[in-house]
């Protein structure tokens, strides 16, 4: 994949035809896996992610259990075929860091003190990476937690904003991530108007940073709406016999 001559054309259209403040087509489905306690599939354009939750269940090894709340384990992982050049098996340093920031975002909203001595395991698998995998993963993970019936103060919705050809854009695709000037993943708890994940790869001016957060908020409000819709869709389908 080489760099296109321009990432934004004279009409303000991006490589995939979007406008600067436009999200990619988003698909969400809750309860896609049978054996986990909660699961969700999320697609942001070419980015495809599955998240699954196990628990609350007994913490292993036992000495890790906390007396006052559940421990939350989180693993963000990319399949070997999710990227252009095959990703070696096992966890890279990047995946270890992203597991940490995703876990910290989820810990913020999950009522872990409801389940002392227990463990809740969250697994995020990136099936295909086309930019914004950590934010799509976190969006899916929060749906999976809700699907597992873990009480939460809010859902978490995330999206990346970035700077491409000197312009701020919403929901970066892979090309924009690779060849743009900055990639800033943002996730929020919309009910509280607060940030639960924030990173920056690249550089931007103070003014761009502030505008970037506002642009992210706009995308996040839409993603949040889609999340609630996806949850309602699953739970309105269940017939009384199944309960």
């Amino acid at each position, binding site marked *: 994949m080489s760099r296109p001559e321009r990432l934004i054309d004279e009409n303000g259209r991006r490589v995939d035809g979007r406008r600067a403040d436009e999200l990619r087509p988003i698909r969400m489905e809750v309860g896609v896996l049978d054996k986990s306690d909660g699961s969700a599939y999320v697609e942001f354009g070419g980015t495809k992610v599955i998240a699954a939750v196990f628990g609350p269940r007994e913490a292993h090894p036992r000495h890790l259990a906390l007396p*006052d709340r559940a421990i939350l384990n989180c693993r963000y992982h990319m399949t070997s075929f999710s990227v252009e050049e095959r990703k070696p098996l096992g966890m890279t*340093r990047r995946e270890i860091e992203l597991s940490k*920031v995703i876990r910290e975002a989820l810990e913020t909203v999950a009522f872990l003190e409801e389940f002392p001595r227990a463990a809740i395991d969250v697994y995020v698998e990136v099936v295909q990476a086309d930019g914004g995998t950590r934010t799509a993963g976190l969006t899916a993970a929060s749906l999976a937690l809700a699907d597992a019936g873990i009480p939460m103060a809010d859902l978490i919705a995330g999206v990346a904003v970035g700077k491409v050809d000197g312009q701020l854009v919403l929901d970066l695709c892979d090309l924009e991530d690779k060849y743009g000037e900055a990639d800033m993943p943002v996730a929020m708890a919309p009910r509280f108007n607060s*940030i*639960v994940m*924030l*990173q920056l790869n690249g*550089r931007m001016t103070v003014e761009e940073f*502030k505008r970037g957060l506002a642009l992210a908020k706009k995308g996040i409000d839409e993603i949040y709406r889609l999340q609630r819709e996806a949850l309602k869709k699953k739970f309105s389908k269940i017939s009384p016999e199944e309960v």
Partner: protein
Amino acid sequence: MALAPKKDLTAKIMRSKIYSLLLQDKRIDGRKPTDLRPIKIETGLLSKAEGSALVSMGSTKILTGIKVEVGVPFPDRPDEGTFTVNAELLPLASASFEPGPPDERGIELARVVDRSLREGRVLDLKKLCLIEGEKVYVLFIDIYVLDYDGNYFDPSLISALAALATAKLPRYDVVDGKLQKTGEYFTPEIRSLPFTVMVGVIGEKFLLDPQLEEEKVLDVSLVMGADEKGNITCVQKNSPGQVPLELMDSIVDIVIEKTGEIRRKFLQEVPVKLAESP
């Protein structure tokens, strides 16, 4: 697999003390909320390392060493030298650090410093190329936390920059496509000095550069950095918790101001002349 760290139960009592002090613009060690701890920078302490720096921020101490090798460039950047950043939270720095390979905290620290150096465009990597496509300088920037009294991020980046700015790289001549040491040394050009400031939020208040007692009770913390041109070069929310969106504007503004303060201190202590920046 990432595990949630244990919460210190005495922290709840400490939090209310620190918070009530913050309401009066005070802190447990007498600082104002936006004061940084005193910074001390020493460079060139070690002779086996091509570059070294010992930096303290209050009683948090960081030692960075740089080792240089000749290696192969990345295929997509055949005319550029490379660098990698590693960080270890040594068991001698804190009772809470355990021996073993870097855990997620060490990896996060290394990657935050790495991004700051890379996105701040500190080094001109093209000038670290020896034979295009074949031989380039490879810099290993290794950060060790020696004493952990909160906030290992800011002093780690300071020490990495100080070690780079005073490093002595061997010069090579290319003779018949082979490298020969000339016996001379040179210091890599530094084009930019991005620094970070760790911000801790408690309630609707925030403080900078938390010491350990404060760090333990923060609602949430983030590390933000900027270069001398006022570009944001680093953002990393590095703990669980929520940052109120309406706090961000004032946080960014204070980060620009305080990274400037660190930069002035750095330029007083470290002999460096900034090269033409890109």
